[in-house]
């Protein structure tokens, strides 16, 4: 089937089997390697992408479902200059160890901050509840997200 979508800000028109998992389409057909597979069942969040601004696990979505939609990954955020503050905060807070969960965490962070620029600690935890990290114990990731809050004057 022909898929028309906006991926990382660019209009794409490609032919793809509609039943191909979105994660495979993004990695294999689009060369977007930040989208990682950890479980293939929607349980780890390593494959999280933004679908029309909402964080979804791309291993549980089929490519046919993104026709007419907009997909954003960390590569896209980087391109439009929206990644810099997140990168800076993750580096400063030591929020990354092996880094395998990181792109997914960043996408969940972005989805949270888009909807809620001033999240509470509780809201931060809930925003990343679907993203498993085996290395950090989440503490430093939460600190990094906290630092990104719009500072109230």
């Amino acid at each position: 089937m022909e898929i028309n979508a906006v991926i990382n800000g660019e209009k794409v028109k490609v032919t793809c089997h509609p039943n191909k998992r979105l994660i495979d389409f993004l990695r294999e057909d689009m060369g977007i390697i930040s989208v990682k597979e950890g479980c293939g069942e929607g349980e780890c969040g390593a494959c999280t992408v933004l679908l029309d601004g909402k964080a979804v696990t791309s291993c549980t979505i089929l490519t046919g479902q993104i026709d007419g939609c907009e997909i954003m990954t960390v590569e896209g955020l980087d391109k439009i200059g929206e990644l810099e503050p997140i990168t800076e905060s993750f580096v400063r807070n030591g929020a990354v160890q092996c880094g395998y969960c990181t792109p997914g965490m960043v996408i969940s962070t972005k989805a949270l901050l888009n909807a809620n620029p001033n999240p509470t600690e509780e809201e931060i935890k809930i925003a990343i509840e679907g993203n498993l990290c085996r290395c950090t114990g989440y503490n430093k990731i939460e600190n990094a997200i906290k630092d990104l809050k719009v500072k109230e004057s």
Partner: protein
Amino acid sequence: MKTEFQYIGKRVERQDTADKVRGKTKYVGDMTRADMLYGKLLTSDKAHAKVTIDKTKAMMIKGVVAVFTNEDVPQTPYNSNQWFPGAATAEDEYVLHKIAKHVGDRIALVVGETPEAAEKGLNELVVFYDELPVVIGFEEAKKNETVIFGTSNLAFEKSLACGEISEGFDRADIIIEDSGSTPKVHHSAIENHSCLAEIDPFGNLVVWSPCQVVFQVQHIVAKALGIPYDKTRVIKTTIGGSFGGKGIPILEPVCAFAAIKLNRPVQIVMERKDSVAGTRSRNATIQKIRTGITKEGRIVAREIVSEFDGGAYLTNAAAVAMAFGKKAFRLYKIKDQKYTGRTYFTNTVPGGACRGYGSPQLHAVSEININNAAKAVGMDPVQFRILNAVDPQEFILGAKDDIGMPGIGNARIKDCLIQGSEAFDWENKKITVSSKNTNRFAYGIGVAAGVHGNGYHGGFPDYTNVDIQVMPDNRIMVKMGIHDLGCGTVLTMQQIAAEALSINPKSINVPQADTFTSPYDSAGTQASRVTFVNGGALKEAADLLKEKMITSYAKLFNCSVDAISMIDGTIGHEEGKKISYGELAILSEAKLETTLKIYLEYKSKGNPAVYAVSFAEVKVDKYTGLVEVIDLLAVQDAGQVINMTLAEGQVEGGAHMSVGMALSEEIKYDKQGNLKTENFSKYHLINAPSMPKVRTLFIQDGEPLGPYGAKSIGELAAVTPGPAVMNAINDALGTNISDYPATPERIIEALSRMRS
């Protein structure tokens, strides 16, 4: 007086983080090669069976290039756990297996032009399982009705002792007995196991692996395939977590075999269910502990018997039982003590290294027993531990512990207990905690101590080689066999060399292990040896390099060595010229015919103990059995922290694993050996909302043999939080739960048992 450091202890930022955030970092699964093939492993559906595979239909699938089974691969047995060629062990594994010994055992490899082709080929394999009787659990194993390997399912047995326990127990006023168990734990690195193998233009095999010991992978691959070691190049790639799970080669031999056979690059990436079922796990244990104490609360005797579920292959049957046992003699002063460890074969996932290697299991049950001992004499559990804990050992090179192992060194366990209980507000919480109780919720506090090591010295060869060189552009190149497992090992090494040479850590390149370019390292990144042993080696090499730089400068500028100083990448004499290290390197080559470079073979000189104490407060829902950890303080005797951010990261991440073992993580099988927890929907990792904030406290009193006083942190971090949580649960409920994990079902069951 404390030395002021320029880089040690500082929160230097990691240089690999930004690329990881941007998704630019390539893991093995992200690597591609022209002409690359994709391998998919067929793993066994049955726990014990003779396997016959009909490949005909699979081979007819378009894009399937080859199907390999046991009949196609060399019949040389190996033990994947053997990390150096001289390690004595029996060998019971093959590249692919004809008799599947556990669900998830590797029985065939399908290689395709695309992942889809390989997948289709896999689905078209016709597999006949001629089922054999299955051995699940200790009882079945002990019956020996079905023997998995050799003549008995008892794979290993050994005792360790000091003094004479019968005499010790005679002196005891009270004997406290406990039994308990710990489950098989899945490492749960978020990156699944993966590997890429190819042949380079010179005909060498190149294996790209997210591994912990490149020289082990080289050894196992060369041996299993009967190819020259010197033509087997293993390169450690970026790793998406390991925790011991990727320490033992699983995919490398079969991936290398396929690449050689087909003369094309082959990549294999496992799926989660195979990572759980077909790699390695923390060994499950059942334990019995007897502790004899006096009325005054002194421990006079202890006997520990622990049995280990070794799984289907020999792997670490001996190593885990010994690692567990040795630590029992290094935490408390116990004159008469005996330990017996036994490891059994079962038709389940084989055991392997898992963060803490035996320590998490030992302290899981023994620290509950210690609490019960304190209670029996009416003592506070912190005070009871302080009374019995070991004291720092005077620094003598070659010192030994009670069972002849290397001395425990500057053991600061008492500081951990004393400073930790203050920081946690233990005394106050002890009085007030139960006042929060309601009909439904019970609150409690718990403490647990633990000990771990610093490498293999005293047990196995523990040495490494370092090649360090000043480059013409004022940068430093360090070649050594290190593997960053995500913890920041590279940065740790950069900071150590930076401190010794006074140069920005960013100017130091420490490439990761590669058997063709890294000098030999005897044991890899495991056994908590890297900071202490590799870091110790690097410091010594850097100090020697500094000496060479100073003498070179003195020769070149004809001055005495005394007033030459090296600061921030510049070397100079009080009255003379200041030049960069790079300029000195250029001059040394041009005028002195020498390279500013040191090659050092460094043998570890000790294996001091490291200590940790955790304090936890929990809130238990008596209706649902759910536990919330509301406060957690982890105290570690770290000698000297090299990088505070990295150290905290280790302790916080270790707590995640340890609290998980206490509350929810468990690999489960049914009686037929079918895996019941093959994915994260059934194997429960703690997620962000359930993870407590981890408060950290480091005791930094310096370890004489460690680089700048440093000793290990990361593995020990996964030892004490779980038992502290368990003790807190028992404190809240008045129960004595000692089977891990304390799931809601177990808690409800313990409560109803108490009521009846």
